[in-house]
């Protein structure tokens, strides 16, 4: 993607302290529409902290976020969701005891009015879920199936489906393939590619070079909580990126 257009999401000078620990220091990041940015780094490099700042779960100690060129202050995940900024967590953040459809719409359930009372509209949840899963070509037996009955890959697909059910503009994925069987990895990567085609900006955090080099357009490395290196995929190699992760240029 051309870097001449304005980025969809831009973070400038993000710093985050936990007590005396500095998790992030002056980190910058940007992602454009239809672009996939890979974020790499060793354990403790600050990747997950950065993503939690972007999703509104953590408030940065310093720095600012710009969404479509406008500065935004995120007080909670709901604020970022309202902007169209969605997060797929590493632990998937699904409620296993609820059906697929209710997970996808959790916190934003469609309702119908019965006099003064607002009741959940289960038919609509089911209808919207089936349409959305079809659009993303995700196969499950039924939208009523409980998430705890699904395989790891199906759960990841549900998590991604949830992140895109409300016209997401940027989707952030934390280790989207880490917990998956090999045959399921390909399906999830396909899903990411089809998201890009719809104009969504995607940020993928991953340890797996295969993931980065299959779906990403640009890659940036964090090292000890700071920006270490960044390049478009065509200008770098696996060995170089692996070197960045270990702090070597």
């Amino acid at each position, binding site marked *: 993607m051309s870097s001449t257009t304005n980025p969809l999401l831009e973070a400038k000078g993000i710093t985050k302290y936990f007590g005396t620990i500095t998790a992030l220091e002056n980190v910058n990041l940007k992602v454009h529409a239809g672009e996939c940015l890979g974020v790499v780094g060793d354990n403790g490099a600050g990747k997950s902290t950065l993503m939690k700042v972007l999703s509104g779960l953590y408030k940065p100690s310093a720095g600012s976020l710009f969404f479509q060129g406008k500065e935004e202050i995120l007080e909670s995940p709901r604020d970022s*969701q309202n902007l169209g900024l969605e997060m797929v967590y590493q632990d998937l953040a699904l409620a296993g005891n609820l059906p697929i459809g209710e997970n996808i719409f*959790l916190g934003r359930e469609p309702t119908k009015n019965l006099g003064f009372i607002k009741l959940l509209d289960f038919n609509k949840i089911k209808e919207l879920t089936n349409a959305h899963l079809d659009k993303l070509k995700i196969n499950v037996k039924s939208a009523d199936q409980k998430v*705890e009955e699904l395989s790891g890959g199906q759960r990841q697909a549900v998590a991604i489906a949830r992140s895109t059910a409300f016209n997401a503009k940027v989707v952030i994925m934390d280790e989207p393939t880490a917990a998956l069987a090999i045959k399921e990895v390909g399906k999830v990567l396909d899903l990411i590619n089809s998201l890009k085609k719809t104009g969504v900006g995607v940020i993928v955090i991953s340890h797996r070079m295969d993931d980065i080099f299959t779906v990403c357009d640009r890659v940036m490395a964090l090292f000890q909580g700071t920006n270490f290196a960044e390049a478009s995929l065509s200008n770098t190699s696996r060995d170089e990126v692996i070197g960045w992760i270990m702090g070597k240029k």
Partner: protein
Amino acid sequence: MEDKDKKIVSLHLKLMPYLEKYGILLLLVIMILVMHILQPDVFLSWRNVTNVFKQISWQSMLALGVFMVIVTAGIDLSVGSIMMLSLMILAVVAKAGAPWYIVVITPLIAGFLCGLFNGLGITLLRMPHPFIMTLGTLYIFRGTGNLISGGTPISGFTDEVRYLGHGRIDLQWLGLEKSQYLPVSLVLIAIVYIIFWIFLNHSKTGKWIYAIGGNPNAARASGINVNKILVIVYSLCGFLSGIGALILAGRTDSGYPNAGLQSELDAIAACIIGGASFFGGRGTVLGVFAGVMIMGILRNGLNLMDVSSFWQQVLIGSIIVLAVYIDVLRRDLGTRK
């Protein structure tokens, strides 16, 4: 040997979904049939059936409150004490000569405030587990109840105050005899349970209560204010305990220091028997009702047969262990590892 094991496992797999949904109702029906066979003249008589409902009336309120808390993977040990404190406040206010509509509303407000105190304590003080906060308030509320009443019973309420616990709905217009009345408390149970069934299954807040029990991180990541929902849940639990106090006031016509002693354990037992899981996110309002009924019928039936109350304890304990074993099997077989 292996083949036999496989057969048993596949039988389990087939039966589990049905057991999960209807097992508890099946147990209830079997108990009713057994009691009817053992006591054909008495057990299903109008008088005895209404008796059972009158006996479970206030427990059913505590159990419903504790159930909501258990769905969030929490626990409330203080419901018995909340009920006692609410009852004592009611008694003191009644003795002070307040009009009946004030007297009736005081236990509801007191119960709600006690629950609010629990909820705020758990969330604001960041207690490591609700067990600790509500264990503390179990003592605090009962102590407070004794402080305001001087530790002595206070008796004698007006008919209006006693209506919910003691009132009768006459059915003679249906051609029934005078003794065949409907206890007001039975109608109250039905109304409260239906309202909470709708609340838990058909409202956003209800759905979020289940989501918090299933995975609090998922709820948080979905933008749900988990602490706010928990405060609502504990407050409603207290409010239901306040309704329990109002019913008990009607039934016993008295506020007394031992009211609701250990009833928190009965409430938890009813939830567990009814299929709620301590892991959270599981269980139904119908299941809790069945749990309350099973405990009520067991006590009633064994009393009718003149069985010692010690045996009642043994049997109720056994049913709890059995019910949780079914829960364990269900989790083993129903979930992918």
